[in-house]
């Protein structure tokens, strides 16, 4: 028997105004799995990740993370919206890495990393600082602890962002096109950190255009188009022998 999924998305629907961005999306991710989501611009990949992390509220369907229902409590067969503080607590199960890094510009790399553990999780500052330094070393930035984001290259900023998410000890890591804002020579260093993370057994959902990375690391690849999951399967199958015409069209456009 396969292990129970750690993320379970069931019949997710999302509208922005009258425009439906997600159409009945369902997806299970098991512990230790790496799932890559690919698809054209505007197909809803970012919105899907943001629903999992509760940065947007879905309009229908349910998302379970580590056995807990996202955003609601269940009483007498009805769903009651959780207060803000409870949602903030639930978010700790997932770590998010954004396309545009979103480091806090007024804090050094080290301060960025320890902010969450110290201010939110109220962990002991000294211990967290040691952990943060270890994480910085792990992403190859041991000597940049005191640098402000503006003093780091894009690739370095993104690696700090990954360390920041990891220091919260999340169960699942979400990546939204983590390399697409980077210069080509900087992409490699970030992908290397992500590969190492996947190898260490972290559960990861990765929205990416880096098909080489998907091919190498992903246990499963999901192709989305216009708010729907069109095709899902192993990396070799989806990227090598896509079944659907739309997947083929997308791949040939990206591969040029």
């Amino acid at each position, binding site marked *: 028997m396969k292990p129970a999924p750690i993320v379970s998305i069931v019949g997710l629907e999302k509208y922005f105004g009258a425009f439906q961005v997600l159409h009945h999306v369902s997806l299970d991710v098991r512990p230790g799995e790496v799932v890559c989501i690919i698809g054209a611009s505007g197909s809803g990949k970012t919105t899907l990740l943001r629903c999992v*992390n509760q*940065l947007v509220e879905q309009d229908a369907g349910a998302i379970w993370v580590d056995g807990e229902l996202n955003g609601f409590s269940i009483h007498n067969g009805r769903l009651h919206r959780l207060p*803000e*503080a409870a949602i*903030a*607590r639930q*978010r*700790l199960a*997932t*770590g*998010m890495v*954004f396309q*545009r890094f*979103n*480091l*806090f*510009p*007024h*804090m*050094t790399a080290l301060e960025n990393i320890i*902010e*969450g553990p110290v*201010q*939110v*999780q109220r962990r002991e500052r000294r211990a967290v600082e040691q952990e943060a330094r270890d994480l910085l070393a792990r992403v190859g930035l041991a000597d940049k602890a005191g640098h*402000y*984001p*503006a003093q780091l290259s894009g690739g370095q900023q993104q690696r700090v962002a990954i360390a*920041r*998410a990891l220091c*919260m000890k999340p169960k699942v890591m979400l990546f939204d096109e983590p390399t697409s804002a980077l210069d080509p020579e900087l992409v490699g260093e970030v992908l290397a950190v992500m590969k190492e993370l996947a190898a260490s057994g972290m559960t990861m959902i990765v929205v990416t255009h880096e098909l080489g990375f998907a091919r190498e690391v992903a246990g499963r690849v999901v192709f989305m188009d216009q708010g729907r999951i069109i095709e899902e399967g192993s990396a070799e199958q989806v990227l090598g022998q896509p079944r659907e015409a739309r997947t083929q069209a997308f791949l040939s456009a990206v591969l040029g």
Partner: protein
Amino acid sequence: MTGPLPDISGYSIAPQRHWGRWIAVAVILLLLAALARAFAVGMIEWQFVGTFLTAPVILTGLLNTIVMTFAAMGVGIVLGVITAIMRMSPNPVLRGVAMGYVWLFRGTPVILQLLLWFNLALIFPRLGISGWWTVRTVEVMTPVVAALLGLGINQGAYTSEVVRAGLLAVDTGQYEAAKAIGMTRLLALRRIVLPQAMRVIIPPLGNEFIGMVKLTSLASVIQFTEILHSAQNIYYANSRVIELLIVAAIWYLAIVSLLTPLQMLLERRFARGTAGGR
């Protein structure tokens, strides 16, 4: 196409002359000199300016002006931040209260606000919980207290708009990053968004601060003896109106000249981590 290009590697660059600039400087200096002369020979008696510049009453007024400026701006900033945060709350009641406050206090003359606080006893003769502990309103509402309330609460309404603009200027990605590490809205505002908003807030707040230095003079209607009030008391006695206003202006200029570098210091402090700052 032209022929082969000349080799100019040995040529030196002629220094720039900027004739226009020098002429402009000369004209401006001449104008200033003419103005200075007109003031010097005009019906202004400068010995009065010199005599009263350091008169004890003027210096007392100066001190009161400075203290009240900082105190009222302190009240204004606290209220402004709270109001700005309320305006951006998802709770419509809080939003409504904040909007009403800004509307009412930006919309009424400060002089009325000052007089209403000072004369609160017309409406509430005694303050406190009746039958338990009360105090005569006029004893609480001294000129200093009324001036602080009147100026501070009025300033809060203006400051809240400044703070709101600052909060809106922070990239939404920062709110999301803060949420993603589990912060609640208020914690994110305090730790992440406000410190970054300060960069945008400080320059207009500097304007407001300088405005407050001079706004304190309105408090003279409720007997708060700031510097303009002191100057007026003197010219009521000796009729040297322009001369004493110049005394006040010299001190105002001095305060403003000191505040400006302070503002720059703060700007540098909050530019930490951006291209300009360290």
